[in-house]
C-alpha cells in the first residue's frame, strides 16, 4: 500500500475511474439535456405531464430512431446511407402493390421488410463489392428508390390496408405503451448488445478507425460493410411497415426528408460523423430529446421553422462546445 512504501511513484490500474468517466461522458450531457427539456416542458405547458400525451409524443421519434440505430453503426464504420427515407417509400409502395394483389397482413409485413433488405443489399453491393463511396451511391439510390415509387403511384395513393395491419403503427401492447415504443426499446437493447458486446461490434469500431489496419488484423472489412448496409435496409423496411400502418396509406412523398433527421439524431447522439466512435445509448437519448423538443414546442404552438432553428442550434452547439472546451484546455 502507498502508506508503507516510501516510493512516490503510483501506477494506477485505470487512468480514470469508470464513474468519473461516465459522469464526463457524452451520454451524461445528453441525460442532463433530456431532464432539462422534460422539466422545462412540464412547466411551460399544463398538457405535457399526461401519460397518453407523452405516449402520443413517442410517435415523433420511434420510426426514425429504429433507423438511427443501424445508421449509427454504419457511420461508426465510416460509411453513410442517405437512401433510408427512399427505401421507406419503395417498401411502402411494394406493400401497397401486395395489398392490391390481395395479400393479408403477415405477407404485407414480409414484403415491406423484404423490400428494405433488398434495397440495403443493393447499396451494399455498390459500396462493398464495387468499392464506390457510400455517400455517392446512396445519393443515387435515394433518387432511384423514390423515383420507382413515384412512377408506380403518380399522384395516386394506396389506401385500403386491412384493419389488422393498422396495429403496427396505431396499436398498443399494454396501457400507453404502443407497439412502436416497445419495438423501439427492444431494438435499442438488440443494437446495444450487437455493437458493444459482440466481435462484430468491435470490428465495426476497428474499421471506422482504420480500415486498412482492420483488414490486416483479419477482419473481413467488406463483408462487415455489406452486412451494415443490409441492416440499415432491414431497419428501414421495419420503419416502413410502422409508418405505413400509422398513416394507413402510401404516397410517393412518404417520409420525405427523414434521412436528414436520422443523421441528425445519430450525430446528436455523440457518434463521430467521421467514424470510429459513438454509442447506442447516446442515440437512444438523442431520439428522446428530439421527440420531447418537437412535442414540447408543438404544445406551445411554436411554428415548425422555429423548431428547426432550435434543433439546428442544438446540434451545432453540442458538437462545437466540447471541441471548444478541448481547445481552451490546451
Amino acid at each position, binding site marked *: 500500500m502507498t502508506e508503507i512504501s516510501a516510493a512516490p511513484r503510483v501506477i494506477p490500474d485505470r487512468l480514470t475511474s469508470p464513474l468519473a468517466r461516465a459522469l464526463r461522458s457524452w451520454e451524461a450531457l445528453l441525460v442532463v439535456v433530456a431532464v432539462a427539456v422534460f422539466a422545462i416542458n412540464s412547466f411551460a*405547458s399544463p*398538457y*405535457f405531464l*399526461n401519460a*397518453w*400525451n407523452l405516449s*402520443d*409524443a413517442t*410517435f*415523433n421519434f420511434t420510426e426514425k430512431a429504429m433507423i438511427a440505430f443501424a445508421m449509427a453503426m454504419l457511420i461508426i464504420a465510416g460509411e453513410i446511407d442517405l437512401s433510408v427515407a427512399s427505401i421507406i417509400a419503395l417498401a411502402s409502395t411494394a406493400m401497397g402493390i401486395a395489398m392490391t394483389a390481395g395479400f393479408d397482413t403477415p405477407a404485407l409485413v414480409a414484403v415491406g421488410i423484404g423490400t428494405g433488405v433488398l434495397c440495403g443489399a443493393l447499396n451494399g453491393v455498390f459500396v462493398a463489392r464495387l468499392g464506390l463511396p457510400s455517400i455517392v451511391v446512396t445519393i443515387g439510390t435515394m433518387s432511384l428508390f423514390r423515383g420507382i415509387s413515384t412512377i408506380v403511384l403518380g399522384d395516386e*395513393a394506396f*389506401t385500403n390496408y386491412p384493419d389488422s395491419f*393498422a396495429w403496427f*403503427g*396505431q396499436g398498443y401492447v399494454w396501457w400507453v405503451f404502443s407497439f412502436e415504443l416497445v419495438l423501439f426499446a427492444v431494438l435499442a437493447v438488440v443494437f446495444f448488445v450487437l455493437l458493444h458486446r459482440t466481435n462484430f461490434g468491435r470490428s465495426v469500431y476497428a474499421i471506422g478507425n482504420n480500415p486498412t489496419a482492420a483488414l490486416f488484423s483479419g477482419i473481413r472489412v467488406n463483408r462487415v460493410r455489406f452486412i451494415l448496409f443490409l441492416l440499415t435496409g432491414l431497419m428501414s423496411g421495419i420503419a416502413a411497415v410502422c*409508418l405505413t400502418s*400509422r*398513416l*394507413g*396509406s402510401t*404516397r410517393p*412523398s*412518404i*417520409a*420525405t*426528408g*427523414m434521412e436528414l433527421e436520422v443523421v441528425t439524431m445519430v450525430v446528436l447522439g455523440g457518434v463521430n460523423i467521421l467514424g470510429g466512435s459513438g454509442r447506442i445509448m447516446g442515440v437512444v437519448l438523442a431520439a428522446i430529446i428530439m421527440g420531447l423538443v*418537437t*412535442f414540447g414546442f*408543438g*404544445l406551445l*404552438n411554436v*411554428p*415548425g*421553422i422555429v*423548431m*428547426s432553428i432550435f434543433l439546428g442550434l442544438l446540434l451545432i452547439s453540442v458538437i462545437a462546445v466540447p471541441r471548444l472546451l478541448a481547445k481552451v484546455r490546451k
Partner: protein
Amino acid sequence: MSILRKALTTAALATALIATGAHAETKRIALVVKALGIGFFEAANKGAEEAAKELGDVEIIYTGPTDTTAEGQIEVINSLIAQGVDAIAISANDPDAVAPALQKAMERGITVISWDSGVAKEGRQMHLNPSSSALIGNTIIKLAADHMTEKGDVAILSATSTSTNQNVWIEEATKVLPNYPNVNLVATVYGDDLADKSYREAQGLIQTYPNLKAIIAPTTVGILAASQAVTDAGKIGQINVTGLGLPSEMAGAVESGATISFAIWNPIDLGYAATMLAYNISNGAKAEPGAEIPMGRMGAAKLDDNNEAAMSDPFTYDKSNIEQFKSIF
C-alpha cells in the same frame, strides 16, 4: 334591511358573474394549414381571426408543419389533441395519411372539419369546398358575358384534355350556355398547363377566329399565357382574357387591360367560413347529409351525401381590388 338587500344583490351578482364566467369559456379552434409561410393560408388565417372577433369567445390557433408533409401535419395534430382543443379545421397535405390521427382526435371529443384540401370521409365530420363545379362553370361564362355588348365568339383554353377538374368545369359551363345568348363558344383547346404551349394555342385562337371577343382559361397557367398572347398581338380591348387565375400573377394583365376581371376563391372568406363551421359544429350543430350549417356572413353550408359543402361562387377580382390581393396570394 338595506344591508341584507345589499348582501343579497351582491350574492346574486356574484352568482350571475360566475355563471357567465363558466359560459364564456373560450373555444379554441385550430386552423391547420399545409405549411406555414404560404400567402394563401396567411390570408385564410386573417379570415379566421375575423370570425373569432365576430364570435367573441373564440381563440384561433394558426398552425401547420414547415414542409407540406403528411407526417409533419400528424405531429401537429397530435400536439393539438394533447392540448385538448375544441375543434380542428384542416387543409390536408394528404387526404388519407392524416385520417387515422384525425379519427383519434374525434374519439377524444374534438370537432374535425376539413377545408380547401379535403380529408377522406372517415377522418372528418364535414368538408368545405371553396366552390362547386357548377358554380365555377357558371362563373367563367358569366365573366366573359358580362363584358360583351353584342354576340361574339368565345374560346376556352384549358389545361390537359385529361385534367379532371377542368373537364368537369367546362362540362358545367356548356350546360349554362343557353342563359348567355351573347356567348358563341367556338373552340376548346388544350395548353397542357405549360406556359409556352398555352401561349401558342392562344395565338392560334387569335388568328383562327377574327371575331373572337373572349378567351376563357380555367387554369392559372393558361390565363396568364393567354393574356400575354393577347397583349403581344396588340388585341387589348378587343379580346378579353378571363377565367381562373392568381391575383399575384394576374396583376399586370389587369393593369394593362388584357384581363378585365377573373375569378378564384377568396382565401379570407374560406378561413372565415371554416372557422364559423367548426364553431357551430363544436357547439352542437349536426354535420349530416342535408343539414344546413350557418357560416356567418357567408350564408349557410348545405351538406351533400358525402358531408361536403360548397362555400360560394368564386370571388371576382378586377381593377378595384387587385392591389389589395396581389400581395396575398
